[in-house]
């Protein structure tokens, strides 16, 4: 089992979610985060002074999946989150050793 963490643009989130749903991936945990990387910050301006806000709002998806779904999910996220401009975000893959469904106590792939 693998954990996919995808940091994407907030305004691509609904599209990505719909695409994941279509491809059969329903389970996910989502949060609003802020990020920085190559993307320049945005400028905000108050009383005539400009401030650069270098932490930009992003959405972080955390999805645990069976290893053999990995490629599919990466593709779905990549294609739907991409705009081609700097700031599209990243996908991180890391190992998961065990998954437990609290409701039933099921473990492993069945619990996903």
């Amino acid at each position: 089992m693998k954990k996919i963490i995808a940091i994407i643009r907030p305004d691509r989130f609904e599209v990505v979610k719909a695409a994941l749903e279509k491809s059969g991936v329903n389970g996910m945990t989502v949060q609003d985060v802020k990020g920085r990387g190559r993307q320049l910050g945005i400028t905000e301006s108050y009383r005539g002074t400009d401030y650069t806000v270098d932490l930009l709002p992003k959405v972080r998806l955390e999805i645990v999946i069976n290893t053999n779904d990995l490629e599919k999910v990466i593709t779905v996220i990549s294609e739907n989150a991409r705009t081609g401009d700097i700031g599209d975000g990243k996908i991180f893959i890391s190992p998961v050793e065990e998954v437990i469904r609290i409701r039933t106590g099921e473990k492993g792939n069945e619990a996903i």
Partner: protein
Amino acid sequence: MTTILDSGDTAWMLISTALVILMTIPGLALFYSGLIRKQNVLNTMFLSFITFAIVSVLWFVFGYDLVFNSDIMGIIGTIKNPFFNGVLESGSLATLAPTIPTGLFALFQMTFAAITVALISGAIVERMKFSAWLAFVPVWLLLVYVPVAHWMWGGGFLAQLGALDFAGGIVVHLTSGIAALALVLLLGVRKDMRLLPHNLGYSVIGAGLLWFGWFGFNAGSALSAGNLAVSAMIVTNISAAMGMLAWVLMDKLNTGKPTLLGALSGAIAGLASITPAAGYVNIPAAIIIGFVASIVSYYAVSKIKPWLGYDDALDVFGIHGVCGILGSLAVGIFALPAINSALTQGGLITGNLNLIGVQLLAVIVVMVYAFGMTLIIGKVLDKTLGLRVEAEDEVQGLDVNLHEESGYRLS
């Protein structure tokens, strides 16, 4: 001429009084608290509320009498009725407003004292000790507000010279703006001086209530419900509108985008600058006053302040101080006896050079006095109580550290 109570005038002054109270609590509290970091939102609101409460009481202990009771050598009034003893019972009419009760005039005047002190708090937020502020309020009220108000409104020497201040350009905005400047010089800059409003919605509500309340402030200063109140209300509104439009224009020209905070700031500039002139000028003059004052404020705030480097957090000097001065001088230019029959002389546009001279004098005298006296008060408080919070409190925020409360529990 025997005078009798006029129920219409009294009705108008009752509601005007309530309106000016609304300006401070919660108007100013909200306007200011939307602009600072979320960790200080409650402390910022608290400053306005507690200031209002303290002044509410002290005004009837010594404030009113020292400002309005029998003048001593043009300098100060006399304490005759501490706790307003007997005044309510007597049901007497106000000397300066002979169609309304004395008590009502006194309460209306109290609201001006309260908002003047509360205005200062915008400069010192995010770093001043609460205890030091509690001490500052009564002392500053006694040593700065009370004498200046007496000089201009209580028959003191500036009034005797003919200086005019319809609703508080000098008494309210200049004194608070200058005091703000003096205090922040003593307090020093915050660790984080950026103006990054945490909740502009509060400032929008605050600005709306300030605008609304300002009709009580300016049109109420006519002290009756007649032509003068109407005229003051119209010029107040149009100056605010022009101030807003001017600042939005400046935003567009300077940083490229119109901003809502700019619009609100411009409106406040328009309101503050018309305040001393509201009962003396006509619509074209008000349009000019609001427009010019807003632009000057814009530059004071966005260019001069960073250049000089003082940390007037919410621009009390840059907006209120500057607009108080401009508006008071504008009286010397635009005052028209046709608008206010109490005027014995008009401004420059009536060909009279005298008034602007007197106005300038009053501005300078009050500026010097308020600045110096506030410096002294601040210095003494600093040496005794200390003005500034611990570095840790400042970094972590004042709400949790000074008040053990937090502004939001949204997650």
